[in-house]
């Protein structure tokens, strides 16, 4: 089934364009911050911009477009939003723990120690 952009009113088109551009801009900003921030633990914050409202904006635009031009609620993009919101913390947590582990093995000075475990020996991961 094909939906056409000519079927929707102008106010809806402006709303959809706003959400699209806001989402894409946040995704771009996430990538820029990912390039510019100096350390790994600061960089990990930047991609959450594109996974929170970057995804949210574009998926909202998509829901609005298909619902308004189709004349009924098409909301399966919500699934992508929920999926991304739930999976991003998992990947980032795993990556951050891997990074912490690697930095601790190398005795990096700025990394907080895990107490009671000698450095270089804390390979226990639940």
């Amino acid at each position, binding site marked *: 089934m094909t939906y056409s952009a000519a079927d929707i009113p102008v106010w809806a088109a402006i709303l959809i364009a706003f959400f699209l551009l806001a989402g894409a801009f946040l995704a771009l900003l996430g990538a820029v911050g990912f390039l*510019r921030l100096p*350390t790994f*633990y600061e960089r990990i914050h*930047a991609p*959450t*911009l594109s996974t929170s409202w970057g995804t949210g904006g574009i998926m909202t635009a998509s829901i609005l477009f298909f619902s308004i031009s189709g004349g009924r609620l098409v909301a399966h993009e919500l699934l992508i939003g929920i999926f991304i919101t739930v999976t*991003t*913390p998992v990947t980032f947590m795993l990556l951050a723990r891997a990074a912490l582990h690697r930095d601790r093995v190398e005795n990096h000075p700025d990394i907080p120690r895990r107490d009671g475990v000698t450095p270089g020996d804390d390979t226990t991961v639940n």
Partner: protein
Amino acid sequence: MFPYPLLTIALLVMWLLLNGFTFGHLLLGGTVAVFASWGMAALRPDKPRLRKWYLLPKLFGIVMLDIIRSNLAVAWIILRGRAPGHRSSFIILQLQLRDPTALAILAVIITSTPGSAWLEYDSRRSSVLIHVLDLVDDEAWANLIKNRYEKLLLEIFS
């Protein structure tokens, strides 16, 4: 019949969102959801105890608001750099939460809010290591998480 009502409903809603709402899909999706929840019951995970489930929408609203606000804040930091006196740093937080589901929800909240990332949970000391991008005062930040999210989660799961 329904060992996990929330899971069953969520699976049915997902099925209907993917396939479109018709009576046939309602029946088929319902059957699949019930069988899947029986499969889940056969795995015997620890059942989460939701005490005050009606507080979940309130938590959801607070989190959505905070995500929008911190999106703007992080976007500003990326464009303009941090204000003087602000720094990025690790903080260690002592939590009262013990329930695994509540901890998972807290981890999702903290990580999906830009500007703070949940790094590592130590179950023996029940402390968590969090990295904050724009930190002024350690104490204020810890109190924010404790009062805003943890208190509510403690009320919901207790």
